[in-house]
Every structure is written in C-alpha cells, then in structure tokens.
C-alpha cells in the first residue's frame, strides 16, 4: 500500500527534480485540492499579475492525475470534489484549519498497472514528451507501485510530511 502523493514526489525527484517545488507546494493541499489545481485550466483575473502564463511542470501533472484517477477507480470524482470543496470552504470560513482528509492510497492489480502505464505514456506524449522518455517515466511509476507492498514502511506518517 502506498500513497499517491508519495509516489508522485519520488518519481518527480528522480525524473525532474526542478518540478519538486511544485509538488511540494501541492503537497501542502489535500489530494483533492492538488488534483483540482493540476486539472484546472481556468485563468483567474489578476489585475496586477504578470499576464497570461502556461501551466508549468510536465511530469508532476501527468503522473498525479493518472494515478489519482486509477486510485479512485471510477468514483464520481465530480460529485465528490464538489462536496469536498463545500466542506473545505466551510472549514476555511470557520477558520478551523485544513481538513484532515486521508491521502489517497493506490493499490493496483497487474492488469491495472498496465493500464496506468499506457495512460501515462499517452498523456505525456500528448504534452510533448518524447515517446521513449514517456515510457521510461511510466515504467518508473509502475515499478514503484508494484514494489510498494515491500516498501510500505517508508510511506509518510502524515499527508503533509514532505519526506
């Protein structure tokens, strides 16, 4: 058993260390918030911003989004995320601090691992990564999940632990 956020960080640390600040920033949020941030294409109105900018980071969004989807296995994420947003919004207004939502755990069968690999390769190539690099990335991710039971003791104590 392993947390999605931990897999993502490990993969990013290995494949694209410059994206670590992004992953660390997202790890400050709960998993739903991080996934929402990575999936969002909305441009906010920032009168004194620098201007239009594209999404930075390549590996972190691809890996996190695919793993999150696989971990949830068809749960209606839209409904869930809406409810979670309402709940977390209320908590913020009431100043109760972040919700102690459990981080998403990923456990996959061999057939599902193959599917995850395919999806990572597809998404990464869609975003302009070379096929060979995409496959190397996918293999790295799959290897980590497959090896997870043996190394489950290394998972983070708390969701926000950056180790």
């Amino acid at each position, binding site marked *: 058993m392993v947390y999605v956020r931990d897999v993502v960080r490990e993969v990013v640390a290995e494949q694209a*260390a*410059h*994206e670590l*600040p*992004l992953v*660390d*920033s*997202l790890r*400050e*949020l709960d998993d739903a*918030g991080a996934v*929402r*941030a*990575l999936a*969002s294409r909305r*441009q*906010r*109105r*920032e*009168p*004194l*911003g*620098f*201007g*239009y*900018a*594209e*999404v*930075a*980071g390549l590996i972190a*969004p691809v890996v996190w989004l695919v793993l999150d989807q696989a971990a949830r296995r068809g749960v209606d994420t839209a409904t869930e995320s809406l409810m979670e947003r309402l709940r977390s919004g209320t908590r*913020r*207004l009431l100043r109760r601090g972040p919700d102690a939502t459990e981080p998403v755990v990923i456990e996959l069968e061999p057939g599902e691992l193959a599917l995850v690999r395919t999806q990572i390769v597809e998404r990464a190539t869609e975003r302009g990564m070379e096929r060979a690099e995409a496959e190397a990335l996918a293999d790295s991710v799959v290897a980590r999940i497959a090896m997870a039971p043996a190394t489950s003791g290394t998972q983070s104590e708390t969701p926000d632990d*950056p180790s």
Partner: protein
Amino acid sequence: MRPPAAFRSATGTGPRFVLLMVLVTLSGVPLFGITFTALTMDYESGSGAMDCMFAAGFDPAAGDGENALRAMRRPELLRKCLDEQPQSYAGLVATAAMLAVAAAVYWYQPKLHGLRRRSAPVETVDADGSLAAELALLRTHAGLGPELSFRVDLARTTSSAYVEGRSGRYSVHLHAGLLVRRGTDPEGFRAVVLHELAHVRHRDVDYASASTALWRVFVVTALLPHLGQYGYSLFLLALHTDSPWSPAAPSMVGFVLVALLLVGLVHLARADLLRRREFHADLRAVAWGADPAGWHRPEPRGGVLPSLRRFTAPLRTHPGWEERRTVLADPGRLDRLVPLEMFLTGVSASLLFGAVSVLPFMPRGTALLWTSDGLVTLALCSVLGVQATRAASRVDRIAESGVLAGLWLGFGLLVGQFAVSGRHRVDLVPSNPEYLLVFLLVGTVPLVWWSQTLRLLPGLPGRSRRVALLVCALAAALTLLSGLMWWRLGGERIILGIGDPAGAFAKAYTLTVHGDWGPYASDLSALAEGTFVLSSLHAQPPVSVAAVLLWLAPLVLFLFQGAEAARRSRPEVRRTLAAAVACGLMSLVVVAVVRYAQATPRPADVQERTGAFLIVQIWWLIVTVTVVCMVAGALVAAFSRRHWMLRALVAAQVVQLFLYGGVFLSYAADGCLGPANAVSDTCHWNLRNGLTTAVPVVRLTYNNAVLGAACAALLGAGCARLVRRWRARPELSLAPLPAPAAAGHRRVTALKAGAVLAFCVPAVFAVLVVNSAPKPSDYSDIAARELAGADGDPGSPPGRAGGRTGDDGRKPERGKGTEDPAVQRLQMHSWLHKGGIRRVRKFDAAVTSLYAEIGKVRARGEGKKRVRVEEKDFHKLCVDVRKRTDRTLDYFPVPDKELQREWSAALRRVRTAARECQEATVLPEDESRAARKKREKKFTGSLHEVVRGVSDVTAVFEKITVEAGSTTGHRGRKDD
C-alpha cells in the same frame, strides 16, 4: 523636450485614476439624492423641484424647446421657487458613508482574498533557503523594504505571479508553477518577480485596490438601486402607456444612459489604465536588469475568436505579449496620445460636469457654470497635461499634430454631454443635434495649439522657458474653458432651437430701435440669431485673456527664439506677417465693399438712417470682421507646413486690427465716402461717430474672431492636407527640436519688443473696450420680457409693469397649451401650491380689511343720508389691495389659457378700481365743492368696482381649484 519636474511621474496615469475615482464618488451624490427623493417623496404635498417646473408650465408631452420657453417666461420666479426647495444633504451624507465603507473594504480586501486563496509563506516550499534569499535580494534591488512579503499561491500551477495588499503592506504571490520556472529559466523567474516589484514601486497596488473597492461599493450601494428605481419606473410606463408621465420616458432613459455610460467608462478606463501600468512595470523591470527574453511567451489560446479579439482587447487588463515586446523595444510609444485614452478622458470630463453641477453647495446661475467648467478644465489639464507634453516632445508627425488626439477628446466630450443633457430632456434627440459637433473643435483647438507651442519653447533660454511654459499652459486651459463655456452659455440653447426664443430678440430690436424694420426682415432674423451665437463669450474676461494669449504668446515665442532656432523661425515670421498685411489690406477693400453694398439704398430721412438701417449695417460689419478673420486664419494655416495654427492666429490678429481700423476710419469719415455713406451727407471728420460704431463691432468680435480663426485654421489645415494627399505630395519631415537658446543681441531684442508692443497695445485697448463697456441686458431678462409680452401674461417683470397696464388687447399668439388633462391638473395643482394660494390668501386678507372698513362705515351710516368717511384709512387699505393685486398678478400664468385670461382680467379690474380708490382718497388742497362731489362719486364707484372685481377673482379662483382637483381653504367672497 523634457517635461518640467512637476509634471513628471512614474507612469503619468495617476491623475487619470484619481479623476476616475473622483468621478465615481461625485456621481454618488446625485444618485443617492435621487434614490432618497424617490423613496421619501410625498406626491400630494406639492413640494419638490418638479412642482416648480409644473407651476411654470412644464409639460412632459411638449418638446424641450417649448418647455424651455415656458420656463423662460418667469425665470426669476422659477429660480426663487427652486431656491426655496429644502436643500437635501442626504446624497452627500450617503456618499460620505459610501466612502467610509469603501475605505473599510480597501483595508480588509487582502484578508478577504486570503480566505479565498490558498497561499503559504515562501519558506514553506523553500527547503534550502535559496529562494527566500534571492527574493530578498531582488526586493532590495527594487528599493523596497521588508514590509513587502512573498507568498506562494499553492493551487496555481502556472508560471506567473501577482501582487496585492494595501498601503504599506504588500505581498507578492508567486504561482507554484513559477517555482518550476526558476529551475528551468532563472532569468524568466527574475523578470516576473521584478515586474511585480515594479507594480509596488509605481503604487499600482494602491490605485488598483482603491478603485476596485470604491467601484464595487458604489455599484452595490448607489448604482444598482438607482438603475432598479428607473427600471421599475420604465416598466410601469410600459404597462400604462396612457400615463401623463409617458412622454417623460426619454428623460428617464437619459438617467439610465448616464449610469450605463458610467459603468462602461469605468470598466474601459480602468482596464486601459492597468494596461498602461503593465507597460511601465515591464520597462521598470527591464531597467532593473530583467531579461527582455522573459517576455517571449505564447499568446493565450482559445477564448474569444481572433476576429473579435480587437473588440475585447480594451476590456483586458493586460496587453498581448506581442504589444508588450513592441513597447519594450520602443518605450517612446507610451508617450503618444492614444485615441481610446483621449475619448475616455473626454467622457469622464462631461460626466464630471454633470456630477459637479448638481452638488448641493454649488453657487447658482452663471457662477455655477463657470465653477463647474473651471473644475472640469482643471481636471482635464491635470490628466492630459503630462501626456500632451510628452507627446508634443516627440519628433514624429503623428504625435506632434495633436489633431487626432484632440478630435477623440472632443468626441468623448460630445458623447458624455449628449448623455448628461439627456437627463434634462424630454426629447430623445434634441432639435439641432449637429451643434454637438462643436465639441470636436473644443477638444482639438487647445490641444493642437499646446502641441505646436511646446515645439517653440526649447528655443528660449532656461528661465524664460519656464515662464513661457506656464503662460502657454494658462492660455491652453483658458481656451478649453472658453470652448466649454460657449457651449454652456450658448450651445445648450441653440441645440434646443431657442437661440432666439420665439423671436423674442427680434421683437426686442423692433421695439427698442426706431426705424422701419420692414425692409430688413431677413437681416433682423439673422441679427437676432447671430447676436446670440456671438454674445455668449463677448464680455467674459477669462475668454479675452485666452483670445490675447492665443496669438501673443506664439508671436513672442517666434520673435525671441535663440540664434539657431531663429534662423529657422525668422522666415516663418516674415512670411506670416507679410501674408497678414496682405490679407489686412484686402480686408479694408472688403469693408469698403460691404459699406457700399449696405448703403444702397439708404433711407432718405437722416433720422431714419440712425435706426434700423444703421443697426443692420453694423451687424453685417460684425459678420464681415468675423468671417474675414476666419478666412485669413484658414488660408494661412492651409499654406503653412509648420506651426500652422500659431501662424494663422498671428495673421488673423493682424487682419483683425486692420479691420477695426477700417471700420473706425470709415465711420469717422462718414459723409466723405460718396455712395458708401451711411448716415451723414456732409464730409467732415467725426471721431465720435467712428467710436460709436467701432465699439460694438469690437465688443462682439474681439473674442469670437480669435477663437473663430483658430477653428478655421483647423479646417483650413485639414483641407490643405487632404488636397496634398490627393495630389500625392510627400509630407514634410519635421526638423529636430532646436537646442536651448543663448541670449540675443540687445538691439535686435529692442526691435522685437517694439514689434510685440505695436501689436499688443491696440489689442489690449480692444480687450479693455470689450470688458469695460456696460453689459447689455441679460439673455434671460430679454427673453422673459418679450415672451411674457407675447403671452399676454399679466405678471410682467419689474420695470415693464407700468408700461403694460391696460394692455388687454394683446392676445397670446405663441405656444400651444397643455392638451393632456392629467398634466394640466398637475400643473394647476403645482400652480396653486407653489405660490398661488399664498398670494391669494394675502390678497384675501387685504380685501377683508377693506370690507371690514366698508362694513363699519355702513353701520355708522345706517338711517343717515350722508356719512363721514376716514379718507386716510381707506387710502391705506386701497393701496394695500392694489399692492396685493399686483403681487398676485406677478406670478406664473395659470396653466389653462382660458382661465388665465379670466384670471388676468378679474385681477386687473380690481387693480384699476383700487388705484381709482387710492386716487380718490387723496385730499387735495382748496378743493371746490363740485370737485369734491366728483371725487366722492369716484370713490363710491371704485369701491363698487373693487367688490365686483373681487367677486370675479373669487369665481375664477374657484374654477382653478376645481380644475386642480384640490381644496384650498380659501373660500370665495359672495358679499357685495
């Protein structure tokens, strides 16, 4: 040329932001006021400014021109009625409260944003501390202190940043994605951070946050209730089309239009200002060492269609990357006067006038117009002064001319004025809307003049350059003010078609000037209309100062250029003066031709020649002077490539002086001119005749000819440019700006000073003539007098009351009565409650006292053949009755024309009888018996007549109260 230190600012857009916020704040006062009035109005009490209008005869179904005429019949009464309305400060108090709320929102805005956005201090994601160290370094490099904090916006994966906060407490929020960029593109990261620091350094955060807070609070508290109120009223009118208020819908649309225009203006202006500040922040960031490659970013994909992007671009707060790169490559582009910016500033200025002029503490009458337009001019100069100065310092042709920018400014003034004036109109479009185009000239002339004058300033030595700059700024501001004031004093009436209200001025001429006007019917109409156009600005000292400075300042600048610049400007001055003298000599011929044309045929009788004939002749000379100056200005501008407006004005002034000399000499020598003689048949030199004729010509033309020549120069130069383009002549490239001048030779300087004095002395004399002669009767006085006369109105203004006594035969010929019974009832009701009842009660009290005295005498004389009467007591009572009758007559005419005739006749009957009673009770010395008997008979008869007249008055007043649908407490008198 470098603008003076006072004009320099980081971005030059601060004054525009301030203007926008002042406009929004001041707009709140009338909006709150109107909403409060609508919520608290007691529709039955007869109080409120609208009732004054109804009492004066306002009819929503009539046109604006007709309503203006009705208001002009008794302007002093209307003014008094409006002044008597309780001054409401609710709008001011509510606006102050709005400002307090906006200040609170501004203060707590960052905290509110913090609740919504998930951010953390930079240290949270900065494991090795290098990020915080780099940011601190950049902050120090930007000259900012530790009060500026850096945070990471955790949920933003884009590689951007933004800044927010309030005065003294700012925070730069880095998107989480920007931290990725720091690893891949450190220079790009630095560019983003330095750009945000530049925003802080330029105080953009304060302007943006304050304007946002103010606008949001204004929309919620003032604008939405205002729009809701008018939307509801318009909805009701749409449901009840038979309502007497239906015709007033356009004026309601006017209010809605102003509100919507304000919404559009604020959004566009704010977006425009923020875009400009982005450019300045980019430039500052690059100046601090940011790599311009950081701006090589892709344009956003998706969103609006590319074909629509041009229209949506003005609403965006950020310019496109391509545009930003262009500005970084050529920062001088920011100094150009952009059409959109000019247009928005023009609209703001017009809306500002609309907001300022209705503030409760402003003065009344013409002082209000001067004050309001003075403030508008001040605002425009503060806002555009820096930009215009920077633009004029550029060498290229587009920026130098100022024509395009001026036209857009004028167009903005026009649009704003159209919307603002819509609030006071019942017609959606005024009868002469083409006169609104005058605003194009009002905006363009000062801007072009300023632009061209600034190009002459570098040729002066340092100290005198600063003085000249101030004088020229004053002249440009006064010219703008003159244009705006012409609109307030003349244009606003002309646009409604009441320049000569119902022929009142023409009638005034026929009554006051002797002679047969029959042959001059068409001249009279032109005279009445034209005099109004010219007289709006003719005796206004600020306009005269502008008129002198417009040509004198360029002349001095031309003559006192330094050695190097003088080499270029000397031929220009010579050519201009030569053309001016040639035009001046030709203008003398024109004067002679006009004199001859007007003198044939002339009346045989000398006395006749000094009346209508002479007035018409002087009028056409006034037209000649104005037109010839304008033609001279247009010609000189058309044939000048550089400084065309300045040269046109100098030339026109020379021509103007020639023309004045021609007019003076031709009348001083009247009698020696053969067929062109006007009055005299004998040849002799008469200075007085010359002065008598020249003074009115100078008075009506001095200011107008100079301003007219400036406008004509614009048209002349425009036409010449079109012709040149048509003939495909290459445009002249401008020479670079001259170097600052050294002091000139003393002898040459004395000659130049002499030349300036030679022009200056007669001009100053002319200005003294213009402003020292007694002012003619006020426009509203003449209009009121003649309109009241045309109405057969009983209440005549003071000064004409005696002359019009017994003028019963004069029936009203002009104007239609109100047709809608509901409106007429409203008018009657207001007529009663705005002074009708008060006057009748006082009249009633005076009559009651007289009746009481009559009753006493009757009681004393019961059973006797003769009874002694206290003549002094009766005299006093009769005088009182006459005075009260006069006072009752001195009121708005009854809205129903038939009732007005009856009311007027009944009151005059009482007045005549009371006057007879008054005369009959004066005891003469050594009165014979027969005379005494006659006086007794007259006294008795007058009392009977008073009683009958009072009975008539009572009957008519009862009819009026019935028509008004109200009970008044005044009971009719039935006793006889």
